[in-house]
């Protein structure tokens, strides 16, 4: 596949993908395709894909519905949780509206308690996610994946076969490989594109329902970026920043903008939308598909795990492989687990890699853009 459009236009198209999928999801529904709404990277997408369902991401990223949510939820709660609940309650988000089933996981305290209220007015299935990546934890998550499969079979009156799951695993793995090939372009020095543009594709691709078409398009983007790079079209040398921490799409992407407006470039995303949720493949050789899925998904290094060694491991790899100059940890307000982990991550980054680290606490509003700019600019001046 070859791109008929220029890269900036393609980036913008991906940025609009979430909105563009509103109509697509309506059409899918009209054709009778079940729609499953998911919140978290721990959600084993393969199970839903195996029954032919469309999976939509529900994590909301705008402060538009926060006041509605605050009628039911405390004010000092993470904006992602409040925004998501608010969109569900007001039905302002078509993805919530069209979801036949919403799947949550017992990740952080705020989210799992929010699901209890969400279940009062939406069909919700909660997967019990262990807090520790122990032997028992993996066993338990395997059972939970089977319980989820059973729940889908019962609700939609279908049979999900092992063969179907295997097919879905292969498809998702090839999507992961494409996304990895895309963000690995950032290993080049100087960087081929802005982190903001990279993020548009990473985020936008999660809202493409035709996975194979999305994969083809990602490879087309990769080829185009490489071609332009060889022609000398790339960024000038800039400080190379790794972004980690809470999810940063939507309202919190102002931090990416602040980094790149002040002369840096975001080389790698370790967050939910980035390497954390993409990096590892599901073992296609394992005859026990549920075990293969449990092993892969429970390995994700989110701060809701205790301890959380995989976050450190992945971050270390990214710092080395992408020649990172500094790490910026973005914490959504009241995201306790990531906030507590800032101390450990700061020590790890400062002491093991001897590069600067800064954490920033923010929400989805625009009220703190001035302060964020000052901090980020000072951080980049320091490099």
């Amino acid at each position: 596949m070859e791109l008929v459009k220029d890269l900036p236009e393609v980036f913008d198209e991906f940025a609009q993908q979430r909105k563009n999928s509103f109509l697509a999801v309506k059409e899918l529904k009209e054709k009778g395709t079940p729609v499953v709404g998911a919140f978290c990277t721990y959600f084993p997408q393969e199970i839903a894909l195996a029954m032919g369902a469309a999976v939509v991401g529900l994590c909301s990223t705008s402060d538009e519905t926060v006041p509605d949510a605050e009628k039911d939820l405390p004010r000092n709660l993470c904006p992602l949780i409040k925004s998501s609940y608010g969109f569900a309650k007001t039905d302002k988000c078509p993805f919530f509206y069209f979801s036949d089933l919403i799947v949550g996981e017992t990740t952080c305290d705020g989210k799992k308690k929010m699901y209890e209220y969400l279940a009062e007015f939406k069909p919700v299935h909660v997967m019990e996610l262990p807090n520790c990546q122990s032997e028992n934890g993996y066993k338990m998550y395997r059972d939970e994946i089977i319980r989820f499969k059973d729940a889908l079979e019962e609700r939609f009156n279908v049979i999900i076969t092992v063969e179907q799951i295997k097919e879905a695993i292969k498809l998702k793995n090839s999507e992961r490989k494409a996304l990895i090939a895309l963000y690995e372009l950032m290993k080049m020095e100087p960087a081929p594109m802005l982190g903001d543009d990279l993020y548009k594709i990473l985020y936008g691709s999660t809202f493409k329902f035709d996975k194979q078409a999305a994969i083809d398009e990602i490879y087309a983007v990769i080829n185009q970026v490489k071609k332009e790079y060889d022609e000398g079209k790339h960024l000038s040398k800039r400080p190379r920043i790794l972004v980690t921490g809470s999810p940063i799409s939507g309202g919190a992407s102002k931090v990416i903008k602040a980094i790149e407006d002040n002369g840096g470039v975001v080389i790698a995303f370790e967050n939910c939308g980035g390497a954390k949720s993409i990096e590892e493949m599901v073992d296609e050789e394992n005859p026990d598909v549920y075990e293969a899925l449990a092993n892969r998904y429970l390995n994700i290094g989110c701060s809701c795990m205790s301890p959380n060694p995989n976050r450190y491991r992945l971050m270390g790899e990214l710092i080395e492989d992408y020649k990172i100059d500094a790490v910026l940890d973005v914490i959504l307000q009241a995201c306790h687990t990531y906030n507590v982990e800032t101390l450990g991550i700061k020590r790890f980054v400062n002491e093991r890699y001897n590069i600067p680290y800064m954490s920033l606490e923010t929400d989805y509003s625009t009220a703190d853009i001035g302060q964020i700019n000052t901090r980020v600019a000072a951080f980049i001046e320091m490099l």
Partner: protein
Amino acid sequence: MYSLGIDSGSTMIKGVLFDGKDIIAYKKIPTSANPKESIQNLYKELYSDKVAYVVATGYGRLLLPEADRYVTEITCHGTGAAYLSQEIGAVIDIGGQDCKAILLDENQHVIDFLMNDKCAAGTGRFIEMMMRILEEPMSYLDNFVKGKNPISISSMCAVFAEGEIVSLLAKGADKGDIALGIIHSICRRTAFFAERLKLADPVFFSGGLAGFQVFRDTLEFYLKRAVKTNTMAQYAGAIGAALIGYKKAAVK
């Protein structure tokens, strides 16, 4: 050749002229309700044909379009403090609306920093507000609290602390004891905040509050570290801006 550094803070706008060796002029004016006009007035007063480079810093830095460069107050405070007092390990700046802790390496470069701009209770604004309630001028603060016993102020928030102070006054508490209690509250908060960085001795104290002996002593008490300052400490940001500007002008 001169460079001009302007630090547009929330309470005062400070300007410094630098000739590559010495500070040859300095001035501060209140930010007022029209900061844009204030910064222009100060700029016009200090600017001349000899000025080759202008650097603006502080939260209102973008209000000066004449600047050749904008640099954040973190970098400027670090640079300015290192000029005023050689061989310092860290800078604590308590400004009118924020509080900064800056860590410097042996070459006096910024290597880490923290900023608190979400809470007024750790800033100069807090003591200003409280002195207004006590109906005492800020300028006599040192004398006013001399020999007093600090009353513990428990409120974590400047707005709630105001209520606490009103009720202390109603109970007939001594105004000097209350004021010293507020100073302790600000310094304790600042020390805990700054200790999140691995501070190195000595600590340079900048910002308007550094001019008060009682603030220097109390901060030293809570930090358990030597605190240095300089009569020009309030100008640290503007000095840093002027120094950075001079360097830039030299290579221009």
